[in-house]
């Protein structure tokens, strides 16, 4: 699956996007756990529920299942307009 990072999340991960392929990541909760381990600086933001998640360009708040061809985005609150 493809993971995209935006704004200051991108600055923390030092990465615009990356591809993950792991049996440990079956749902959003497991993805968060994986990312917390890979990027310890993200942990506190997950805990404070500051970050937004989009799966295939739709906001997701529940712990939905993820598929290998999904595009998942992790980003802070928006500030457009």
């Amino acid at each position, binding site marked *: 699956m493809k993971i995209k990072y935006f704004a*200051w999340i991108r600055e923390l991960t030092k990465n615009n996007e990356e591809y993950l392929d792991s049996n440990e990541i079956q749902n959003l909760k497991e993805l968060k756990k994986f990312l917390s381990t890979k990027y310890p600086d993200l942990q506190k933001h997950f805990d404070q529920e500051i970050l937004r998640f*989009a799966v295939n*360009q739709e906001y997701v708040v529940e712990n939905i299942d993820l598929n290998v061809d999904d595009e998942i985005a992790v980003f802070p609150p*928006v*500030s*457009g307009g």
Partner: protein
Amino acid sequence: MIKIQKENFNVEKEISSIKKIHSNVGAVTSFIGYVRDNNNNTNVESINLEVYEKMAYKQFQKIIKEANINWNLIDTLIIHRYGKLQINDKIVLVASFSSHRKDSFAACNFIMDYLKKDAPFWKNEFYDKKNEWLTNTS
């Protein structure tokens, strides 16, 4: 019509190119957002606006669909810029085309509310010696 672009736009040209298709349009309400010189009492020099383009299109389509359920609209235009923008530059244009005033006002207001809340854009403001990521307030 949805446009996500780096380039500036001409409000007259953008609105009239849609208006001229529909002779039943009597009312167009539009909102233009600009880069201000000052935010939270700090002097802004420029901003960089980052976008998740694919998602922005999807969200704008959704907003327009929702607006059409609630009001009688003939057409809707959303233009949102991204990239490096200077003070006084336009950031966004939303225009609602309707037969009557009340529909166009309500829809334009609704779209801006939704856009501020959900559209995946991030403003990085540059000040004299630092820069800062913003979050929408209202």
